[in-house]
């Protein structure tokens, strides 16, 4: 899912978005997976704060990132959706601190889950 979200976002916002993809490879052991992630995270943290967006709590991606939650400059959000990712790119470009960005993105992500019929006043009761 991560590369799909990246490609869809890059198609709209351009290739120079500060978004990186980590996907869990099916043939890696947990140790190999964790080591690969930690290496990537260290490199990104050298350049600034990092917001980790995962699909859902309890999946393998969240199991990989959760051990990092107490690290300075790292925030983790679950339930990533496209509006959240678009907004995250904007906040990153504005250099909003990652803690503040995380709080705003939870609200923003939720707000953008809408029932179109209800928006148009046509929803069934």
């Amino acid at each position, binding site marked *: 899912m991560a590369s799909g979200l990246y490609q869809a976002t890059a198609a709209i916002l351009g290739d120079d978005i500060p978004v990186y993809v980590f996907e869990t490879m*099916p*043939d*890696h*052991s*947990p*140790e*190999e997976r964790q080591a690969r992630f930690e290496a990537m995270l260290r490199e990104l943290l050298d350049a600034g704060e990092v917001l980790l967006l995962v699909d*859902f*709590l*309890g*999946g*393998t991606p*969240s*199991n990989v990132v*959760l*051990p990092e939650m107490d690290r300075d400059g790292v925030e983790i959000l679950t339930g990533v959706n496209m509006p959240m990712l678009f907004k995250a790119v904007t906040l990153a470009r504005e250099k909003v601190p990652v803690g503040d960005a995380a709080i705003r993105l939870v609200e923003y992500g939720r707000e953008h889950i809408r029932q179109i019929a209800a928006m148009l006043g046509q929803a069934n009761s």
Partner: protein
Amino acid sequence: MIVNLRVDDRLIHGQVTQGWVPSLHINTIVVVSDVLADNPVRQQVMQLGVPPSVRVLFMTVTQVLDALQDLSSTSERVMLLSDSPGPFCALSRALNQRQEDSPILTLGNLHGADRAHKLGQTVFCSEQEYSQLSELARNGVNLECCAGVHDASEQVQMGVWQESTDSSLS
């Protein structure tokens, strides 16, 4: 009752919580791990994604053996979950001694550079693990490979150890 034994190097993850737990009506997961039983931080992280209706316990192999009577006779539907086959060897010996049938052992996910022998689409094992699985089979445990609940399960027959070959050997 112990409904299922599962070996999965990812332990508690989406396939388990969203697939196997509802499918088998599991309401108690026992993670069998001497290492994790002593790590409250990792336990807390692992429980975050588990539905509230499911209880998660972390027990050493010895604790599971001591609690075997209770785990077998409870009305709760229990999955014993380990990240490798070894912890289940002692369990299978104990079940044998009690002349109890063993639940099916599902090999879900096992990967890694040191796991050279392929048993199934998502299951590879080391030589030591092959010996452990052979012991489990000798103790009457039915072994199957099945990662996701909607995947076709493959029965596993333990034969002679060979690297990078199919598992079904006489």
